[in-house]
């Protein structure tokens, strides 16, 4: 059984994110005949040979492992689309391209379990890796905008994995700025001038707001 993540670090563990990604829908082409499945998570099927149908990724992977279907590569994972996305990611220093919320996990699951259904797998894989790298770099530089006046950060088009990775830093940074900005903190600092010595590496000190 998957272990629980610590609720106060990153909210979700990688395994839990993968679990969530497994509920994303993909198209499969079964090679068997099977009645519809009436599952708790929904009704899927019926399954007929050569007739495409939509199922959650976990179901697709389970059938694939037993050699009962082929998985159709999602549109956004074609070499053509990914090349476009990568170019657009490189062109803009700030904006992120819309990709499925779980693109990292979906791509990994498909690489692991359906490699023979992916044409040009090496190309696709390296494109995904490149996109991931470019995006992570942008996130890194993008985080520099957080300052003492930041009460909210909009994370347009970030994916689940990316959100999860920046969460501890972003949350802590925003919280620290929020605390430093609160009136009690400013009074405290005035009352105890030696408080400064406790945080020598806080960077340039911000002028206190006139009261």
């Amino acid at each position, binding site marked *: 059984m998957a272990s629980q993540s610590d609720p106060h670090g990153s909210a979700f563990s990688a395994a839990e994110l993968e679990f969530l990604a497994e509920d994303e829908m993909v198209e499969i082409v079964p090679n068997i005949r099977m009645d519809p499945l009436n599952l708790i998570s929904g009704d899927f099927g019926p399954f007929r040979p050569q007739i495409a149908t939509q199922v959650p990724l976990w179901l697709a992977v389970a059938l694939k492992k037993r050699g009962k279907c082929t998985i159709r590569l999602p549109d956004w994972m074609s070499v053509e689309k990914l090349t476009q996305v990568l170019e657009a990611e490189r062109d803009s220093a700030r904006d992120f391209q819309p990709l499925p919320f779980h693109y990292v996990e979906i791509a990994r699951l498909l690489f692991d379990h359906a490699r023979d259904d992916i044409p040009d797998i090496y190309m696709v894989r390296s494109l995904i890796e490149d996109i991931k790298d470019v995006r992570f770099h942008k996130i890194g530089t993008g985080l520099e905008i957080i300052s003492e006046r930041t009460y909210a950060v909009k*994370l347009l088009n970030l994916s689940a994995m990316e959100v999860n990775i920046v969460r501890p830093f972003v949350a802590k940074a925003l919280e620290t700025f929020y605390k430093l900005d609160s009136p009690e903190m400013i009074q405290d600092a005035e009352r105890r001038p030696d408080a400064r010595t406790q945080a020598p590496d806080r960077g340039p000190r911000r002028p206190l707001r006139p009261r």
Partner: protein
Amino acid sequence: MASSAGEGSGSGLVDTDDYESLISTTDAELLKQAWRNEKAAPEILRFEASLVQRSREQIQLMEETIEEYSKNGVDALTVSLYQMDLDRTMFLLRSYLRTRLQKIEKYAFHIQKTSELWNLLSKPEQTFAIRCTDDMGQLFEQSVLSKLPDRYKSHLKQSVISEEDDMVPEAHLDSFVICRCKRFLGAFQLDETGVEKPVDLEADDLYALRYKSIKPLVESGQVDLV
């Protein structure tokens, strides 16, 4: 003026949306969202009593179905797929309950003395919380407090001169969370003081916000934590 008009039409929207989400959202989806919210929120949320009840019933029904299938010689593949679906639902339910227990354990003293929080717990969770606080109180007493001078014998206060219980850990509502709006919520005031400019909360966008400022939206289900 604009805001009051917005609210009026907004509440109308809520009703239709709630109705639509009621008929279109499966319990599996609801349970997943309850789990995500519970995991991402710093404090304990309301126990989803009826959802948990329904999920339990579905799990039981599915267990019976699987047993019946395997007896009646339905092919092994179908049975194993049903079993996987069942396992996934059970994982969600268990992880949901366990996440709550972790929070209860952590903030047991605070939850117990705050009636708004106490009422968010299910009956078994309340029993758990009581046992938690009893055991922790006893442990502190035996291992440390009984050996301290009289003034420092409380496990809730630093010393007798403390005016309030200042040794009780509680959830940090000022911590920031990442959330997604289910639909356009318009300009939203993040700061009680009104000093800050309102932020436009748009559907499907992600925001990092202070939990306290969006707490009502989480409780009413208008934003999801991720």
